């Protein structure tokens, strides 16, 4: 496994908190598991082994002041991880494309030394397929980071869970350490 370092300091040296649309600035490093490939999107770091419809790992950094799409609630720097998790749940469950949302677990968690949360949930999409997601989230500096694994509930989730745990363990915030 090769350490895959994604550090794009480009442009954003002076505007790290601005919107990222079309110009992502990944400020983290993470191990890409063997056999997984990165999908090219403007917004997220996303990898899959068998195709995004079957499974994907995603890492997202979002500035705290960026509004959500489905809820008007905002993240605040003084929020506890549980409060952040509540906002994320509100956002997910207000999305009309997410049906039959079921929260299985919501626990405190530590990610790369940062206090955060870990949620496990299932949902159906509009076509009726059931997916399962393991979602880690934490705040650092002026951003909210989340690492999530979504897969078809049957087969793929259980099969790739251990790989995702390793993926999360390998996650590092680069710029935080450099300061």
């Amino acid at each position: 496994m090769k350490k895959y370092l994604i550090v794009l300091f480009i442009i954003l040296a002076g505007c790290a908190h601005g919107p990222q649309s079309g110009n992502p600035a990944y400020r983290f490093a993470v191990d890409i598991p063997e056999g997984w490939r990165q999908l090219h999107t403007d917004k997220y770091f996303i990898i899959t082994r068998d195709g995004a419809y079957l499974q994907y790992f995603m890492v997202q950094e979002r500035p705290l002041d960026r509004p959500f799409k489905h809820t008007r609630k905002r993240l605040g720097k003084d929020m506890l991880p549980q409060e952040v998790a509540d906002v994320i749940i509100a956002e997910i469950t207000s999305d009309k494309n997410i049906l039959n949302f079921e929260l299985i677990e919501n626990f405190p968690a530590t990610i790369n030394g940062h206090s955060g949360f870990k949620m496990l949930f299932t949902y159906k999409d509009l076509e009726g397929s059931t997916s399962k997601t393991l979602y880690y989230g934490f705040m650092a500096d002026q951003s909210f980071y989340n690492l999530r694994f979504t897969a078809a509930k049957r087969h793929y989730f259980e099969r790739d869970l251990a790989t995702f745990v390793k993926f999360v363990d390998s996650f590092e915030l680069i710029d935080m350490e450099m300061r």
Partner: protein
Amino acid sequence: MKNCLFALCILLLAAGCTSSGLKPLSDDLLTSEDERIIWQRSKEEQKTLANSGLLYEDERLEAYLNQVAKKLHKGLPEDIPIRIFVLRDPYLNAFALPHGAIFIHTGILARMNNEAQLAALLAHEISHCTQRHALKVFRGLKDKSAFIASVQVTLSKLAMVQGLAGSLGVNGSMAAVTGYSCELETEADIVGLDAFIKAGYDCREALDLFEHMRQELVEEGIQEPYFFGTHPKVRERIDNIKNLLKTKYAGANGGVKNTDIFLHRIKGAMLENARLDLKIGRFDIAIRAVSRYLDIVKNDARGYFLMGEIFRQRGGTSDIYTALASYQKAIAIDSSYSDPHKAIGLIHFKHGQKVLARKFFESCLLLAPDTADKAYIQGYIEQCVKDGDG
């Protein structure tokens, strides 16, 4: 995808269809292939909604709503079996599927004042079914492909509508998202108003419903789906109803409002809707709704807890004090209710009052040892112990 395209075709038709001279319902109901297809698809959409987790299930409320619908249905052709359902959705909307399944959002139900207003809404929706508006639209469909592109552009601008269109399918999209053409909406208003008055309801409430909702939308600057929000002719429809009340129904004064029974029946949906408004961050609307709920249901611990949650999460300068007061009321009403204990603990915890915080976290766990967020609370307690009194 097939559903989507079909929906898009139909949606557009709603913009400019004409009446196609349908036979009376009893003559050819479901004898034509096109109507059979529409009904079949409607039933599938109903099934999708039923399995979506979006239905607000309250047997007593449903029985009540269906009872009101039955009163109205007497004044209309009765061939189509009408059935009312409630959807957990805070936006102001209601829609009818062609085969008689009518869906009312908790958002609109929670803002009504009495049964007469509910009846006005139901009468309108039932009329869409009995006048077979979906079939009229379908038969008016000529050039399907020409419409698709422009609908896609329109829908793509409305994220919420896209979501609705997706989960509702063909008929639901037309009924809930775009609405029918002005002519068909006006027809539903006229036929519905007639059934509403025949059922003995207070005719002033029909207007009040529209006016009240329209004003609220304007005040809040809320973008809502079709029923009250985006239809460009709402003002015109209000004027039409006003004219009818002044002319055709000039003698119809007074009538039934049934305020108490209505509020009693919808109170649960009202609280649920306030939770939904809180979830989407419409704090002020949620506060108004819970205040209304607490006017109806005095001394309700869940109501006060929810009020506390809204203020705590809104996080304004003095909100925290209102939140604390609301939680304390909830505890005073029901001392075994664990959630307000946790919430008070959180407030103290965040303000560095660790001894107090610990006391409330511990009482929460004592009352609900298996609470879903036990791991968080145990973590807070450990932190309090570690930090001492702060």
